[in-house]
């Protein structure tokens, strides 16, 4: 009964006209940005972060979440039509989606994607509803040592999935934590590493770091790149799958959702791993496995169901523990903190309207996505035809205006530029900047818990190993680190066909 009350509360929050509208706006903008290659969900959320400061926290989160899963969906459109994944997690969708498009079944592939995404997302929401309150209750037992260790686990997980390898990922995490120490130390009131610049006393702003590292530097990378726009035929042929295709898709969609929900909850793994594992496992169990890679509908359904389920369940650790499962989640966490809400086990109890409102808005958002995408697919396809050189200058200006709008300070714009250049240099040397942002968000909290744990243990550092909860979490981090030495991705994809080679326009 309790659950029903909570869901009613959520409905009351999510179904206000304002929240519905911003949910729609978020999903629409997210899909829009996700369709454009080179600009992923992370940049989408970062760009809309300043706008969200003007909204109440529930509305802001509803909109940002909409942007996030809208962009995930949009990413699959580019994968299917162009064989260019709009988001990393959509790269698996290319394997069967692009062959389907080349067989003239793009409409069917996009429709299947929409249905699978929705199935996955709703499955993920159910998992979130059932699991989050339990996990939050459990996490109330945590002491500072456990909090510190769970953050270590989250950071290790975030760094080992980085494409540049575990050592480089960890370096980025450390750099992020160090950047987070700039400014006034909350315990002693002393300023750290500000170099006498008064604007740095409050620390570096999250928006500045995120926009610089992911907005500006991404545009620098792709501005003159050879990305082509879609020149293929419009969508011809039917949209609706045949009866046989429907029947074939049901079980894969459910299997994908279950796998996705599981991986989404693990900090750091997220959607990319979910869709890879989902696809690889489906290939082992499916009766039509010999058609995989040649345009099998299951090959589109499974990764899409998995990655959308993971997108939803990623909110579980973020909202109940305050540990972001991915970089985008780190940004969400930052948005919450800017609104004065501390994510953690008490969030559900203290801000029930926020948590349950968000949950219900996920359902609305996914319905919007379906409504938006079945009739509007033609528009997205046309958007893919817009030459990219119109896009990038626009993105740059939106970043500038967005950063400037936070506090009408041009120093923020200059600082964003500095982080843009840093991000570009990091990419040049093959350092992926995503873990840096997670370190930056978690760093200050981590230091706080570290110092508190040491105070409670009277200066005995072994507390992190003698408390069983903390020791188990650190052990898990160690196991993850060891596991990162195994080339799992190659192993998983060994039996799968390589991506189609012919990339003609």
């Amino acid at each position, binding site marked *: 009964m309790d659950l029903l009350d909570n869901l009613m509360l959520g409905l009351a929050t999510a179904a206000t006209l304002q929240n519905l509208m911003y949910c729609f706006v978020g999903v629409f903008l997210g899909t829009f940005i996700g369709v454009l290659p080179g600009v992923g969900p992370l940049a989408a959320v970062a760009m809309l972060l300043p706008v969200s400061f003007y909204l109440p926290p529930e509305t802001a989160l509803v909109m940002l979440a909409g942007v996030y899963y809208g962009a995930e969906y949009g990413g699959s459109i580019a994968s299917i039509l162009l064989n260019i994944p709009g988001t990393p997690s959509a790269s698996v969708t290319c394997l069967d989606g692009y062959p389907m498009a080349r067989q003239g079944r793009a409409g069917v592939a996009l429709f299947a994607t929409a249905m699978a995404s929705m199935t996955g997302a709703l499955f993920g929401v159910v998992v979130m509803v059932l699991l989050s309150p339990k996990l939050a209750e459990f996490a109330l037992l945590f002491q500072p040592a456990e909090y510190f260790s769970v953050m270590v686990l989250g950071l290790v997980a975030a760094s080992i999935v980085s494409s540049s390898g575990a050592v480089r990922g960890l370096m980025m995490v*450390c750099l992020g*934590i*160090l950047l987070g120490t700039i400014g006034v130390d909350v315990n002693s009131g002393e300023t750290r590493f500000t170099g006498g610049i008064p604007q740095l006393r409050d620390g570096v702003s999250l928006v500045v770091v995120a926009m610089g590292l992911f907005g500006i530097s991404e545009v620098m990378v792709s*501005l003159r790149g050879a990305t082509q726009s879609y020149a293929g035929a419009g969508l011809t042929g039917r949209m609706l799958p045949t009866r046989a295709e429907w029947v074939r898709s049901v079980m894969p969609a459910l299997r994908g959702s279950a796998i996705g929900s599981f991986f989404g909850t693990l900090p750091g793994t997220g959607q990319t791993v979910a869709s890879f594992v989902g696809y690889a496992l489906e290939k082992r169990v499916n009766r039509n496995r010999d058609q995989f890679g040649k345009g099998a509908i299951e090959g589109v359904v499974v990764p899409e169901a998995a990655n959308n389920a993971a997108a939803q369940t990623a909110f579980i650790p973020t909202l109940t523990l305050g540990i972001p499962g991915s970089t985008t989640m780190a940004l969400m966490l930052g948005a919450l903190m800017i609104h004065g809400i501390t994510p953690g086990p008490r969030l559900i109890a203290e801000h029930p309207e926020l948590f349950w409102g968000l949950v219900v808005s996920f359902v609305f958002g996914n319905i919007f996505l379906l409504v938006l995408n079945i009739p509007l697919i033609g528009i997205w396809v046309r958007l893919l035809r817009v030459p990219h050189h119109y896009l990038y200058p626009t993105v*740059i*200006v939106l970043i500038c205006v967005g950063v400037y709008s936070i506090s009408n300070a041009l120093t923020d714009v200059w600082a964003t530029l500095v982080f843009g250049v840093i991000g570009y240099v990091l990419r040049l040397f093959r350092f992926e900047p995503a873990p840096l942002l997670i370190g930056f968000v978690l760093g200050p909290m981590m230091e706080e818990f570290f110092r508190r744990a040491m105070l409670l243990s009277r200066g005995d550092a072994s507390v992190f190993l003698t408390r069983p909860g903390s020791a188990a979490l650190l052990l898990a981090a160690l196991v993850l680190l060891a596991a990162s030495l195994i080339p799992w991705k190659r192993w998983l994809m060994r039996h799968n066909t390589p991506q189609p080679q012919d990339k003609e326009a």
Partner: protein
Amino acid sequence: MRRLTSHLGPILMLAAGLFFAIGALTALELGSFRRMGPGAFPLLVGALLSLLALIGLAQNLRAPVAMGRADPMAVLGVFGGVAAFAFFTPLTGVLPATACAVLVTASVIKGFRWPHRIALAAGVSVGVWLIFVKGLGIPFTAIRGL
């Protein structure tokens, strides 16, 4: 030469780690284990970063990571665009600065004709006015002196 530049990545990280570690050691109080000062955590993390950078450097010496190809014109275009925005906003207001930024960034893109660049600049300025000034009501000076 290529090898040397590729090693520069971990070396830069080493420099960053040492900067924070040494900065914490010299300028900040470390405190005791029980009551840690403001310098203790940055010292620990800075040292960890330096250590990781050394491991990364060793890895790189064995098998150098291929560097990405730099595109100075793209960097210049984006840098110029953002700088133009920051420079012109106090002088002219946000909308003319927006148009300048679009023109500067668009000017480095090959095969983008000038009439189209100008049209894009005008269109984006109108868009910014509609979304940020009219829609969100952010108190910008849209055009100075107007």
